[in-house]
């Protein structure tokens, strides 16, 4: 736990998140309109989405299934009976004049997410609830000096609102929570987690207190669409609140906005200005009733999630905690690693994936999905190392060529003649030539400077252009150098 040092002593931040995750589904929560991102404005709007007179919502079963899947992935209680409510307010991008949401009876109850802390320990962040709701449309205020344009393509798209308990104690923990939650959603395939496109965003509730004291007054920072912004906004807000209190003031409960340019938060509306949303059960929709078989059917198709996968990587594959965590943090990375490790030395595979592949991806700014080296090619490279066809050093060279060209390792090795030489006769010739070329060094070695062995190995490898099997080189050199030496002992 990281504390904030104020002028008057240490303060602790208390943070909770409300995450809005767009449900991965073909059509909207209550209409058949498409949810595809980037369509022409108002091209994906049904009569229901536009709230034409007499139009009625019909629940999209796929979205319900996705919410249940997410709930199960969060280890949460699935509520077999839930209710859709209307949240009433006026805004041009809210065609019905209300958002259909779930208020007092959400589809998913309490669950938990484990996050790994920097000190190697873990923290459990409790999930209070998950509910389904409609997204609003988009108001564009900057297209015209006088008028606002409204795009309803998003209106009615299904969101899952996932609410955490205020269990995080630092901005880093908030970021770690969001990272892990996003990973879980992607593993489950229930949200693409694409924060730039707005598929995943969070409201962050922050308060500060003396460590262990009662909770302070919270402020909510709305609509953060990157993990970095979550961390920065929470950090700034906590420091701001400490400053307010230390200046003798009191934190006002309010909603604030994060200015990504300045990295600061500013007031949006106070508690008094909060809407009275007049929630009531939507009479157009019956209570949502699920049966156990429906839930069990989804449970049976749940993928292995990050925590379980990490445990397995450590316990069954012998990876380190750190390597396992890096690999499971992203579904695509884990899948890539597993494809490479399939039937091979898992530790060697992990090394290549983490150090070489991830390194190269980082340097080139590519995502794992766009990696120019396929998992099967990287696996083939590992196979070549294991079979002694190439050395680890040559393998790095081959990998660079693979990353550059996207070609398979076998053809690169063959084309460049990089097969490792393990033929003792050929290596012996090289070794003999090296020894013959450095008679004084040989003498020094035999005189007791045995650390010169490395020098000879280097020369031999260089002479073989890296292709000689280093183990064989070593053995031969040692034998030949020692054999011409008097036995003193």
């Amino acid at each position, binding site marked *: 736990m990281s504390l904030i040092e104020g002028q008057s002593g240490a303060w602790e931040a208390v943070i909770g998140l409300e995450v809005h995750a767009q449900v991965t589904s073909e059509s909207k929560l209550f209409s058949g309109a498409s949810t595809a991102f980037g369509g022409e404005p108002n091209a994906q709007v049904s*009569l229901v989405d*536009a*709230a*034409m*007179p*007499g*139009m*009625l*919502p*019909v*629940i999209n079963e796929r979205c319900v299934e996705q919410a249940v899947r997410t709930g199960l992935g969060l280890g949460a209680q699935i509520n077999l009976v839930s209710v859709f409510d*209307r949240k*009433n307010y*006026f805004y*041009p991008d809210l*065609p*019905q*004049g*209300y958002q259909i949401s779930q208020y007092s009876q959400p589809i998913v109850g309490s669950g938990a997410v484990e996050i790994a802390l920097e000190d190697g320990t873990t923290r459990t962040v409790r999930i209070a609830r998950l509910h389904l709701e409609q997204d609003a449309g988009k108001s564009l205020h900057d297209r015209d000096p006088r008028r*606002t344009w*409204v795009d309803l393509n998003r209106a009615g798209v299904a969101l899952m609102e996932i609410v955490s308990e205020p269990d995080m104690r630092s901005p880093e923990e908030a970021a770690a929570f969001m990272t892990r939650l996003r990973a879980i959603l992607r593993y489950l395939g229930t949200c693409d987690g694409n924060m730039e496109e707005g598929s995943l965003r969070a409201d962050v509730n922050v308060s500060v207190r003396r460590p262990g004291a009662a909770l302070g007054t919270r402020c909510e920072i709305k609509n953060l669409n990157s993990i970095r912004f979550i961390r920065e906004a929470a950090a700034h807000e906590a420091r701001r609140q400490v400053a307010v209190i230390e200046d003798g003031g009191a934190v006002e409960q309010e909603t604030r906005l994060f200015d990504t340019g300045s990295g600061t938060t500013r007031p949006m509306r106070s508690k008094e200005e909060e809407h*009275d949303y*007049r*929630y*009531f059960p*939507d*009479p*157009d*929709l*019956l209570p949502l009733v699920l049966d156990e078989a429906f839930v069990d059917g989804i449970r049976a198709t749940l993928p292995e999630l990050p925590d379980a996968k990490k445990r397995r990587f450590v316990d069954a594959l012998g990876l380190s905690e750190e390597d396992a965590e890096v690999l499971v943090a992203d579904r695509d990375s884990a899948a890539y690693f597993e494809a490479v490790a399939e039937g091979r030395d898992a530790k060697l595979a992990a090394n290549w994936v983490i150090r070489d592949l991830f390194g190269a991806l980082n340097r080139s700014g590519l995502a794992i999905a766009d990696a120019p080296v396929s998992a099967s090619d990287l696996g083939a490279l590992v196979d070549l190392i294991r079979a002694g066809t190439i050395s680890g050093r040559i393998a790095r060279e081959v990998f660079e060529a693979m990353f550059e060209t996207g070609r398979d390792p076998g053809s690169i090795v063959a084309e460049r003649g990089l097969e490792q030489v393990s033929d003792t006769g050929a290596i012996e010739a090289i070794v003999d030539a090296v020894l013959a070329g450095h008679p004084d060094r040989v003498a020094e070695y035999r005189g007791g400077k045995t650390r010169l062995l490395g020098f000879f190995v280097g020369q031999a490898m260089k002479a073989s252009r890296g292709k000689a099997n280093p183990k064989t080189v070593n053995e031969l050199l040692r034998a030949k150098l020692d054999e011409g030496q008097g036995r003193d002992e």
Partner: protein
Amino acid sequence: MAGGALTGLTIAAARDALAGGEISARELALAHIAAIEDARPLNAFITETPERALADAAASDARRRRGEAGALEGIPLGIKDLFCTEGVMSTAASAILDGFVPPYESTVSRNLFEAGAVMLGKLNLDEFAMGSSNETSHFGPVENPWRRRGGNRPLVPGRPSARSGAAVAARLCLGATGTDTGGSIRQPAAFCGVVGAKPTYGRCSRWGIVAFASSLDQAGPVARSVRDTAIMLGAMAGFDPKDSTSVDIAVPDFEATIDDGVAGLRVGIPAEYALDETPGDIRALWEDGIAWLRDAGAEPVEVSLPHTAYALPAYHLIAPAEASSNLARYDGVRYGRRVEGADLIDTYARTRGAGFGAEVRRRILIGTYALSAGYYDAYYLKAQKVRTLVARDFDDAFEACDFLLMPTCPSDAFAIGEKSDDPIAMYLNDVLTVPASLAGLPAMSVPAGLSEGGLPLGLQIVSRAFDEETMFRAARSIEKAAGFEARPGPRA
């Protein structure tokens, strides 16, 4: 057949005459178009669609020649202007939707047209179906074609489907669609001397019907005989996957069993429906109804619906609460009237201030209040609890009886303007129809006699959920015994 004879037909009689080739759909449509023109002072229609009617009729006659007649083949109907009709202005009688032409057809009206019905036009109603008198329409009040004996003061035709009732009574259409939220089919039917049936909630799709109170709104037929309403409901009803509250249950042939009688059935008489203020003529008619059913072989049993008195106040919280939210979409942003203001909030205020009439504004305010933080539990939630108790009352009563008989309204039609200054008095007129609405039960009004003032009075039948067949059988028994044949006289 002369025009007057054609417009005086029942749906069943017209169907037989069409089937027998005695008349054509075109003749039937022409007769009604003429009648509608003559009756314009009643203000029964917001939009007349004579060209559409003639085109529908021509298509219908052509289908019949091909041997493809549907259940309502060639029958000219009025469609309440709460139903969205593709390509035909649909206003809910509100200024805010004046000029709105939907690009879609409501499921119920589509069902009717697919059964062969001919559209005469869109019927006037109270704005957004809110009112008990049909006086709140942006397009002016509808007059009841009836006049009090010895008087000539225009009377209200009753609640929102008023126009439907008035149009049917005035022989402007053979039948009409209505919607019933708290009695808007039954009460105008009673006031206008016609038959109105509200089926079980979920029997007809609400898709494409402008919503008033979603948990109560239900479409149903208004016509001049029980058989006609049964024929119409058969065509209107059916599961619709586009309405989550529509129920996937087979639609029986309602007409087939209407003459099965009530012998051996138990008719429940709820004591609580005898209000202190119920006039003597209505009490007497109720007694007559009990006697007619007894004569037909039914066994009258006294039942109790103890929470009846709380139904009306509960209704007047639930319905406005839902309405306040349902009407939020009329904001001037996407369609309908917009009155530009200085900023967004001002535009909302001006648009909705100009677009909604006084009664609609009143209900939005009541509903908004009832749902507000701090009042929700005391009003909306409490009203929902009352609703549950009211529904339970009916469940209990149906342990002891097969259907219920009570008056439709506590009074006969009142004069235009007579109660519009006193919303409470107007709301009280729904006291006998609202309980079945809260319980979602099928209920219908059948004309059974005249008041002391010479105005029609209705008796109401309520049956178990999805047992409209028993409701129609009982209503048919009343109809036969009452022999109600009075019709509005010529206007002075």
